[in-house]
């Protein structure tokens, strides 16, 4: 399953993520493609870019020169910035989820304080089911050795009656699969 591309599982992941009301795109694993995807997805707004926890930083080498990027936000900026970009250390095919680490970087903040979360995940890290995160057999057991959030679609509530997306967390989730 690991370190090789399994098209079936990627396809299942894309379908499940869409069902969970995320938007998904898949691009080649290079800095240029990622830059194009992120420029389009951020729509020229200011963005909080969290330093990647697991993805190769080289992938961000072009995009990180973008003038809209904030990497060391002030308190004012972090309280108001609307878009956050993070990586995910894995994704789950059956549920369309992505897993975001809670680390020294601003990954978790960028994915919870903003209105739109753009997340980048390596196609080789898509696992079949939620239970597989907690297995040594997958991801070299990475899921067993960190704090993280499994994110499935945008933040939502039905507490006010009808289903509403975007409550305390982002109302939009955009997933970029690389590779």
């Amino acid at each position, binding site marked *: 399953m690991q370190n090789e591309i399994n098209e079936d599982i990627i396809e299942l992941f894309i379908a499940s993520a869409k069902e969970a009301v995320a938007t998904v795109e898949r691009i080649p694993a290079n800095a240029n493609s990622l830059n194009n995807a992120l420029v389009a997805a951020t729509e020229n707004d200011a963005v909080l870019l969290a330093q990647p926890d697991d993805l190769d930083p080289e992938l961000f080498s072009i995009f990180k020169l973008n003038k809209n990027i904030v990497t060391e936000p002030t308190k004012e900026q972090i309280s108001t910035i609307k878009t956050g970009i993070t990586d995910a250390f894995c994704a789950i095919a059956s549920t369309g989820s992505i897993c975001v680490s809670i680390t020294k970087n601003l990954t978790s903040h960028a994915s919870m304080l903003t209105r739109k979360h753009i997340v980048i995940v390596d196609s080789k890290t898509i696992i079949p089911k939620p239970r597989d995160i*907690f297995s040594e057999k997958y991801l070299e057991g990475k899921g067993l050795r960190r*704090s993280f959030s499994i994110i499935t679609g945008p933040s939502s509530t039905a507490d006010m009656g009808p289903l509403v997306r975007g409550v305390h967390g982002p109302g939009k989730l955009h997933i970029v699969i690389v590779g």
Partner: protein
Amino acid sequence: MENINDYKIHPREVADKSSKGTLKKAIKLALDVESDAVRLNTQTFNTNRYKAVKKIDDYEELKDRARQIKEYSIQNLPQLIIKLTDTIEHRGGKVFLAKSKKDATDYIKNVCLSHTARLVVKAKSITSEEIGLNSVLEKQGFEIAETDLAEFILQVSKEQPSHNVAPAIHRSRESISELFKRNFNTDKPLETGEELTEFARDILRQKFLSADIGISGANLIAAEEGTILLVESEGNIRLTTQLPAVHIAIAGIEKIIPSKKDFGIFIELLAASGTGQPLTSYTNILEPPLDLPILNLNGRKDEQREFHLVLIDNGRMQMREDDSFKEALYCIRCSACMNSCANFQAVGGHAFGDEVYTGGIGGAWAVGTTGILEKGRFAELCTGCSRCIPNCPVRIDIPKLNTTIKNRLIKAAGGPSLQKIFFGNFSIIGKFASVMPSLSNRISNLSVSRTILEKIIGFEKLRHIPLFAHKTLAKQYKEYRKVNKVKSKLNELTPKLVLLADVFTNYNNPNVGMAAIKVFDKLGMPITLSKLLDEGRAAQSQGLVQLATKRGKKLASYLAGLIDEGKEIIVAEPSVLALFRYDYKKLLNNDNQFDKIARHTYDPIEYLNMLVVNHKLDLSNYIANVDSSKPKIFYHGHCQLKTIGAGYVASEFFQRLNYTVKVSNVECCGMAGSFGYKKEYYAISKNIGDDLTRQIIRSDSFDNNTIILASGTSCREQIGDELNNPIFHPIEFLEKILK
């Protein structure tokens, strides 16, 4: 429906169900102003759950595994607490084991004081309701902001939770809109779900940015790794546990499992069983104190993250010593039992619950965490319909918990009430009444008798008293066999069949029993009638456990004898069949005998369908013509028949014979044996019955000739109270087809 915001009684006033009077008032409140919202929301959860669990390919194995882990954890709880404490303290967190509510709130109060906190943000925690945390902290002068939107609503309305996953499930958008308009001075629009959400979000975002301390609950805690699982949809748990530098997690000790390697099983089961999603928006796996930058957006200068885990005993260790209540400790609070409960769908947790705990599982928790038996009186609302049983991800026998509470309440009251004796001994009453049935029927339905029955027994006078048949099944069978001798047309492999003369079929519905006899005769399968013995169903549903056991054992040894002779037992009354295939396991405490009886008892249509599927019976002569004016059928599956896996066989069977069959998705008709006859529960029962009849009437091409099929005596009674359509047991309808 009246307006909840103007209703004469506030839900808090009737939260404590220790007295019967309060339970009655709470039911009225719920039916008057909460029922519509509760039904809509619980039924949505329920439908989604069925869809979600279907997608888990190893759902049954996963439930077995979850059950095993919980059993092991509760068994080894003292060791797990030590291990967990050790793990978290090694990582720099603090663990406090609180014996009582006061120990817990004192500790939390002191943590808040030590940080000179002003504002505390809180994520949803039913356990914090249990220990009464908010009022303690507020008295100390701290501001508490509930950040889950449902809890935010309840903080404004000052109501207790009505459901453990969606605590404001009793409120419609309209009632929330009005509540907010009355309580907030704002120019912002407060009409749509989006507007209400945005309004609350903006208020709470300011609270998050300035909070000093965050308090959360926990769904599970892994002892080995000190990992906390927190499941949510809104994102408030993430902010609560990660923005302030100080995080306090409150958890009952039963939330501890050995290792996070098993989190996956629970994560998948919890989301599917609760809201019916593959996963909720956020599943948080935290190993605090977290290694995450402190932003100090609140203006503080906190330099280090601090984590406190407050483990709550508050009666749990005693529940663990109680053979019955121990089961309740396996609960993972998914709410599937409430969402699949017809009574809960009608009234919600403000009637079917106390200040903290709700639904079928709530009774044992109310008693266990307060130590007061009377607190569990709302367990009376569990009719034993059993629909929660197959839907519980940790296989808790919730009806049995509630039977235990009812039984203990009876003992505490010094013996059963006349009502319980009356309904629990229906067989004896039937025996006497059947000596002169027409006189008995006349007497029991005389207005003076009805008044006496209502006053003394509590028999609702708007219900018909079940009529005693002019001739019992036993008598009719004897006369019938004088003319129609037992003979076999099929090959000698066909086993001999015995129809059980259960109490209900014998005294009240001999026509159903005779229809079964005639069908099997007609199809050339020899069938005889059993002896008449009370199976214990009526006694069990009244909480008269000893009586039910005594009766059950007697019948069981008789049935086991028949089966040893090579007989198969046909049971027309589904509640009695469910007893043989489920309840007898615990009632008899004899696995061999139970297995034998469970494997050789069948619903009549189920038995025939099995023969057809196995090509041992050919009914092709009876297939309805496409162009004939064949009747339309609406089928309502009996609750307990569904639980034992035979609930939809009749609809499959008649579809095989080319009939168009519409099926209800009402979990239980609401009559539930004697429940709907009782004066104090008549209104709930009727409310559920209306839901069922609404479905029947609104089904495609329904008209006055639509034939309604229901195998339960009480289901037919419930439907017959509202509709004049022909209503039959499926075997009666088959007999008409075969004629």
